[in-house]
């Protein structure tokens, strides 16, 4: 095998340009005192890193970064700022010595570790030579879906994805335990804390254009979520991204038409139920495989073997369709969609339902 030599091409130059931008944004985030500006810059940071993932040819990761980092996390961070203040406190320099030392130490360690990493794009790197090659060569025989990322995510590493889904679910429960599922904050909050001045202001301004465009866009965004969901087997995308996109559609509705209207359309109870239903669906598929004599999440046993062999084009009768794998992936992606979308919606309800407790802070830019 010939030695891999890094070389300067378009890809590398674009990479360096984007990394320089990332660094600049990072410095700006650290330096700004205004938390609102920091949230905005975090959104830009996510945008740039997602573009960087695109340039590195990691389309699925870029998709996730785009919808999560630039989309919902901005809304969540704004909701979090609602509960605190809008300026960060200035610290004495004595208080910053120890954290500074820890940061510098960790940074030096990371740089030291980075020296051992294989070069970018090195074909003999462990990730490319062993497990990556196995996935690329065997996906066609084992799973039979065109998008290898989906095959790895949903089939080879189904356990990991189940864990991630449960993490999202647990995160939603954690937020709900602290802030409520939304209905508590909306209902019981005394009117004094609902900043009626701001609400009256929002209603008196003219937002005809915004409302008309939002009315047009919300169904399109929701439709696009389902495109991403069902296209995930073939192209970039999947249940996680689709769930977040659907939640973004609901968030847009809440932003324009008010949280009360959105809660009429999608009650918090529904979001709660669907969050649990998703996890149930996912682990239920695993249990069905066990009942049919396979391992947990081994989709080859999703249907009884005799039934699968009778299906048209089945790999058991010489075809190339792995029907168990196809249906298993579709169902667990649906479970991921339910959990992610419902959890994001419930979390947004929880954050946005709380009005600005510090009414006096008012609308200072």
């Amino acid at each position, binding site marked *: 095998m010939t030695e891999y030599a890094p070389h300067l091409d378009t890809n590398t130059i674009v990479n360096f340009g984007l990394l320089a931008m990332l660094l600049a944004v990072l410095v700006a985030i650290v330096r700004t005192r205004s938390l609102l500006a920091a949230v905005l810059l975090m959104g830009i940071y996510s945008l740039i890193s997602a573009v960087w993932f695109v340039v590195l040819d990691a389309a699925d990761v870029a998709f996730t970064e785009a919808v999560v980092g630039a989309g919902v996390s901005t809304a969540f961070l704004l909701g979090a700022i609602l509960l605190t203040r809008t300026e960060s406190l200035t610290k004495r320099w004595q208080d910053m010595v120890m954290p500074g030392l820890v940061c510098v130490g960790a940074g030096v360690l990371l740089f030291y570790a980075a020296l051992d990493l294989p070069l970018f794009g090195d074909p003999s790197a462990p990730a490319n030579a062993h497990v990556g090659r196995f996935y690329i060569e065997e996906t066609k025989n084992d799973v039979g879906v065109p998008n290898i990322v989906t095959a790895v995510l949903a089939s080879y590493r189904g356990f990991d994805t189940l864990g991630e889904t449960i993490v999202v679910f647990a995160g939603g429960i954690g937020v709900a335990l602290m802030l409520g599922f939304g209905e508590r904050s909306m209902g019981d909050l005394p009117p004094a804390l609902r900043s009626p001045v701001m609400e009256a*202001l929002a209603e008196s*301004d*003219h*937002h005809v*254009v*915004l409302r008309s*465009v939002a009315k*047009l*866009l919300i169904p*399109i965004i929701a439709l696009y979520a389902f495109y991403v969901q069902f296209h995930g087997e073939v192209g970039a995308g999947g249940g996680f991204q689709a769930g977040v996109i659907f939640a973004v559609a609901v968030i847009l509705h809440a932003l324009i038409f008010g949280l009360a209207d959105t809660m009429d359309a999608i009650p918090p109870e529904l979001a709660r139920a669907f969050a649990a239903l998703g996890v149930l669906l996912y682990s239920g598929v695993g249990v069905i495989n066990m009942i049919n004599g396979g391992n947990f999440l081994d989709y080859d046993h999703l249907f009884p073997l005799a039934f699968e062999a009778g299906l048209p084009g089945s790999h058991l009768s010489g075809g190339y369709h792995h029907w168990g794998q196809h249906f298993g992936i579709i169902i667990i992606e649906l479970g991921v969609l339910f959990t992610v979308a419902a959890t994001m919606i419930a979390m947004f309800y929880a954050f946005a339902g709380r009005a600005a407790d510090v009414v006096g802070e*008012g*609308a*200072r*830019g």
Partner: protein
Amino acid sequence: MADVLFWIDQLGMALALAGGILSVIGSLGVLRFPDLYTRLHAASITDTGAATLMLFGLALMAGFSQEALKLLIAWAFVMLTSPTASHALANAAWSSGQKPKLGAFSLMSGKREPAEADTASGEKGGAP
């Protein structure tokens, strides 16, 4: 026939390049103009213009295919969202008390001529 396809490709690339240059010009405007509203007009006009030039140019290169359709969908979304966002932004800034700079000012220094009374609210838009 191949000749025609070649020139269509070249035309598409030229349109994409024109879009890129237009967006640089717009960004220069956003950087140089003196107040929010002039910056807004520089950004919003060149954004939609650059998106039109670039996405249509790429669609020409893609020919009659699924990619061209996706490019047109992306273009439609940009045309729908970008002006709306600009409008909402201008609306919010105006009603929160940001005043445009009026009267003569020097473009080079970005400052207004001293003869004018200072009515620009500047950085902070107070509560109305």
